[in-house]
Structure formats: C-alpha cells, structure tokens
C-alpha cells in the first residue's frame, strides 16, 4: 500500500497540475506532492531497514535496500529541487507563459514518477519502459527555453537516448531468453534471475551485458555514448539539470548494478569488472580532457558528472567489499554535490545572464551566499576533505590499488588533472571585480535555503560515518554483490 502510494502521488500530481488554472495552485500541488512523496519514501526506508523487502501489486514491484537507497535519493533531491524550481521558474517565466509553467511542473512530476517506477519494479521489462519514459518526460524540459541551442540539445538527447535504450532492450531480451527456460512462463524478475543466475547460458549473458553496458551506459552518461549529456544538462533549466545530473544518471547506474549482480553470479566477477573499469577509465579520461579549459560553467558541471559516473564504475569494477561500498557511497555523494551545484548555477545564470565562465567575475562580492555555496560544492566535488566525496573516492582508489593497481593509479592521475582544471575555472569566477551592470545581493537567495540539507550531509558524512548509514550501505553492497 505504501509502495503504491509512492508511485501514485507524483502521477496524480501530474494529472492535477495539467488541469490546474492558477499558478499558485500549480506550485502548491507541485511542492506538496514532492514533500508527501519524500515522507512516504522515508517511511518505506524505515520499513526496509527492519524487514529488508517490500512487495506490491503481485510481483511487479519489489523494494529492497538498493531500490530504497535510489528512492531516497530521488525523492529527497526531488523535494529540494522542487522548492527551488518554484523560485527559478518565477524568475524565468512570467504569468503570460502560464501554459509553459504548467507543462514544466506537470513534466517535473512525471519525471519523478518514471524514475521511481524504474527503481522499484522487479520486472526488467517494466524497468526498461520506465527508463525510456524518463527520456520522454524530460525532453520538453530540456527545450523549455525554446531557443535554437536548447532545441538542438533536446533533439540530440532524444535521439541518442532512444538509440541507447533500444540497445539496452536487446540486452534485456537476451537475458530474458537466458532466463526464460529456468524461470518458467512468468515474466523475468530480478529476484528470480538472481536466484537462478548460476545456471544461465554464459555466451548469451556475456553478449547481453555488453548491450546493457552500452545501452544503460548511455543513460548513465558513460563514454562513448555521453555526447548528449553536456548539451542537455547545460541547456536544461537549472532545477532539471540538477535532477538529470544528480538523480537520473543514477537510474542508469542502478540498472547496470542490477545486471552486474546477475552477470557476476553467472560468469564470475572478472568479466563485468574488466568492462566496467575500461569504460570508467575512458569516461574519466574524456571528462578530464574537456574539463581542462572549459569555457561554460554548466558544461563544466556536466562533464564532471561523466567523470564521477566513471569513478563509480571504477569502484564497481575494482570490486571487493570496499570497492562496491565506495561506489555506492560515491553515488550518494555525487548526487548531493552535483544537485547543489546545478541549483546554484541557476542563480549565477539568472544574475549574470551568461553561462560563459569568462562573463562571470567577482561572484563572491556580487552575491556572497551563492558564491560561498558554489565554492563549497566545487571543493566537495573535486574531492577535498572534509567533504564526503573525498572519503568515498579514497575508499574506491584504496581498494583499487590492491586489485587493479595500474587502473587505480591512472584514475588518480586523471583526478588530479580534473582538480586543477576545475579549480582554475572556478577561481576566475569567484574573485575579481564584478561587471558594473550587476547589482549586489538579491536574486533567489532565499530559495537556496533547502541546499543547507545537501551541504550539511556532505560535511557530516565527510567527518563521520554514522553506524546506521554504514549499515544501510552495507545492505546495498550485499545486493550489488562484491
């Protein structure tokens, strides 16, 4: 029941927003839905903590610790972003554009709905449908500004993601074929596949995982299918960029983790590990190359997402308890830091009316709150202590040095390159003399208040690892498999 209400609330909100007439009503429905969804998700997380699995609607939906973690990320960042989205859209679209305002908030809720379905369903076909649904729900959001560049970004995003996800369908069908004989006539579920994985046909599973890696890797933003990501993430309105980068990429990763668990059980850990380390390093390399002299700060954040998803893949590939632990921990940290930064970047864009790094000067003086949060977010993102990403990256590369020393060493070198590149760009934005036509303070300062949650968590998880949090991650690690 609780699980079904988690799915129904954003769906009902989508419908209500689509027919609502007043802007205030739309905004209330939107924020209300996001907060109630978060509440239900919290209740589910507590339930999972005690009883480990929740099932609803026959065997269609099944939430274990991994699903619960994803639901927690989706709904908590969804709630934080939804509050900021109200302020941002007020600044961006006046009441004259009520139709577009309605479209924005309706699709926002639909986006949340598709992501929640993707991570809570037990059926890999339904998950595929939901992941394709996330693309369809967000494509108009990317093109919300109706400019030539946003149109181009949205078209590329739609075509590339659709092709990627189509390839993932081949992988899904092959896994279905591999499992159909074992699982009987029922639709193939994660739980039954995982249980019977040892007896699957190895050749089929091997080919399937390659398609899965390319296909869901497209959604996760892995090289070489990442080319849509910098365009879409930089053209989308800030709250949507925050969700696409901080949350949606994780849905792609989630699918890969589920399949990895099956592939490991069928073939042993080395096959998936080598592939994951390969794409992880490649993603890190390409991201580092584009981060060295990046001219656009939203694209900088987007490439940094490619980098961090690469790091998570490295963690999964390095394997062992600590490698996977670090990877799961890093998913949380990246989601927190990246959503914070994209939201703050919305404020910068509204103030300076430019996404070019060279146009932004003296941010610290022009708006100290935005500047300070941006600095804190970037320091967290490039892996400086005392923030949590430092800990998770340390755990990942520490375990990598034992299992794959060369790959880990290359990864660390690339991290240093990223570190230098991003710090130089951000430095030039924060300091110096602000342009004369920029007024000080103001902007959407108050709407940033929910980001205190991101900041506090990044700091707290960087300083201590609470036993309950560690226990939760441990449960997730057991599902992903070491």
């Amino acid at each position, binding site marked *: 029941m609780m699980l079904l209400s988690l799915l129904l609330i954003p769906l009902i909100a989508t419908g209500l927003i689509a027919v609502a007439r007043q802007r205030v009503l739309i905004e209330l429905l939107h924020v209300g839905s996001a907060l109630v969804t978060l509440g239900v998700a919290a209740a589910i997380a507590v339930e999972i903590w005690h009883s480990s699995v929740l099932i609803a609607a026959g065997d269609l939906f099944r939430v274990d610790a991994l699903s619960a973690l994803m639901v927690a990320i989706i709904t908590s960042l969804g709630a934080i972003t939804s509050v900021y989205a109200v302020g941002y859209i007020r600044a961006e679209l006046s009441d004259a554009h009520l139709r577009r305002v309605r479209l924005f908030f309706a699709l926002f809720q639909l986006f949340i709905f598709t992501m929640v379905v993707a991570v809570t369903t037990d*059926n890999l*076909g*339904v998950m*595929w*449908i939901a992941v*394709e*649904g996330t*693309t*369809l729900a967000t*494509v*108009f959001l990317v*093109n919300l500004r109706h400019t*030539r*560049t946003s*149109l*181009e*970004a*949205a*078209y*590329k995003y*739609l*075509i590339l993601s*659709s*092709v990627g996800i*189509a390839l993932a*369908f*081949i992988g*899904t*069908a*092959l896994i*279905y*074929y591999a499992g*159909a004989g074992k699982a009987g006539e029922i*639709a193939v579920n994660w739980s039954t596949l995982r249980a019977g994985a040892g007896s699957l*046909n190895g*050749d*089929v599973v091997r*080919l399937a995982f390659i398609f899965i890696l390319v296909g869901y890797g497209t959604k996760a933003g892995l090289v070489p299918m990442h080319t849509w990501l*910098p*365009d879409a993430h*930089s*053209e989308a309105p800030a709250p949507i960029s925050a969700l696409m980068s901080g949350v949606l990429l994780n849905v792609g990763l989630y699918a890969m983790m589920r399949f990895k668990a099956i592939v490991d059980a069928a073939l042993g850990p080395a096959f998936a590990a080598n592939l994951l380390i390969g794409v992880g390093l490649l993603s890190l390399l390409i991201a580092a190359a*584009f981060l060295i002299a*990046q*001219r656009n700060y939203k*694209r900088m954040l987007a490439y940094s997402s490619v980098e961090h998803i690469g790091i998570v893949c490295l963690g999964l590939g390095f394997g062992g308890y600590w490698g996977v632990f670090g990877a799961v921990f890093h998913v949380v940290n990246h989601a927190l830091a990246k959503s914070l930064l994209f939201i703050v970047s919305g404020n910068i864009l509204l103030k300076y009316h430019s996404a070019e790094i060279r146009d932004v000067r003296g941010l610290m003086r022009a708006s100290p709150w935005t500047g300070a949060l941006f600095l804190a977010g970037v320091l967290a993102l490039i892996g400086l202590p005392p923030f949590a990403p430092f800990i998770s990256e340390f755990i990942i590369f520490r375990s990598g040095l034992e299992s794959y020393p060369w790959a880990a060493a290359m990864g660390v070198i690339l991290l240093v390159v990223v570190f230098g590149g991003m710090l130089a760009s951000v430095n030039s934005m924060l300091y110096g003399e602000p342009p004369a036509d920029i007024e000080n303070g103001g902007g959407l300062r108050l709407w940033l208040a929910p980001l205190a949650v991101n900041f506090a968590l990044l700091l707290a998880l960087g300083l201590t690892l609470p036993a309950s949090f560690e226990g939760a991650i441990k449960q997730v690690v057991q599902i992903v498999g070491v």
Partner: protein
Amino acid sequence: MSAELLSRLVTLLSFAALGLTILLIVRTRLEGQVRVFGLQSLVLALLSVLIALYTGRLELFGVGLALLVIKGIIIPRVLHRAVTKIGIVRVAAPYLGTAPALVICALLTIVAFYVMTPIATTNPLPTADAMPLAFAGVLTGFFIMVNRRRAVTQILGFLMLENGIFLLALLTTYGVPFVVEMGVFLDVLVAVLIMEVFVCHIKDNFDSIDVGELGTLKE
C-alpha cells in the same frame, strides 16, 4: 505447420524485413521511405501471426495486431503528415553515397552473422536460424541514423532499428511478455510523436531539416 516449414517461412520473412531496411538507403523521397517502413511493419505483424499459429500463443496475435495498428498505420500516418507539413526543403545529401552505403550494409550483415550465429545455433527454437538477419537489420538501422542528415530519415532509421530489435526478441524467445511489449510500443509511439514535434520546430528554426545544421553546441 511443421517446425521446418515455420523455420523456412520465418527466415524468408526476416530476409524480406532486412531487404526493406536496405531499400530505405536506396530510396531518396521521404514519402517512399515512410511507405517502406509501413511495409516492414506489415511483414513483422505477419511474422508474429505466423508464430502465433505455430505455437498457439494467443498473446502473439495481440502483439501482431498492435504492431500493425501502431507501427503499420498510426506511425506512418504521423510521419506522412510531418513530411507534408515540411513541404519541399533543401535536400541534404547523406554523408556516404548509395554505393558505399550498400557496401557498409554488406559488412554489417557479415558482422551480424559473426556475432549472432554462436547464440543462434545453441537456441532450440525453430525460429532461431533467422536471428542474424534480425540483428543485421538492427545494425543497418543504426547506420542509417548516423549516415542520413535529414531528421525524418533519422527517425525512420530509429524505427527500423526498433523493428529489428522486436524481430530479434521474437525470434529468440517468441517475444518478451505481453505487458512489456505493449509498453514498448507505447514508448515508441510517444517518442515518434515527440520527434515529429521536434522536426517541425527544427524546420521553423533552421528552415531545413538537415540535422547537420544542428552544430551550434560545441566546445
């Protein structure tokens, strides 16, 4: 119907489906290309019905019918409407001409046989022989998307890739479960409707449907 007869008919129809994908490369007029896609969907619907008759699986009749309605009738109509709305626009030549493109198709077919034959030979179903043909269709559809610069042809390439994947799943396991298949059709339909909107936006903004002109976003 004996297993051998089914196997032969299925291989024949799969071959026809691949032939239609390759025909898309030769055709240059958009209306003709849309018709080729509609015809291919018809062939696939026929294949589903054939397998439904052989196996007695009722849901495959439903899949065939849905395929016929959505991919054989609705989507071609939507695309035809888009083509008419766009009117006559500057013709954008493909990156590779017809002759080299056909050579690439031949190479892709060889690759498809190389990748799929090991899996097809271990598959006990009578339909499995045609799996490499279906995969060749997937690869060719992908190639059309990359090679063609007109947005409508790109969408057709995507749809043929989708058809190839549907065929591959059908041949490998008699299709994925009914609910999933319907969800996939729905997703494809919505995707095409959105793509149509975008094609018209692109036409309005760039006065062309040459996706090669979408090159503003660079480093």
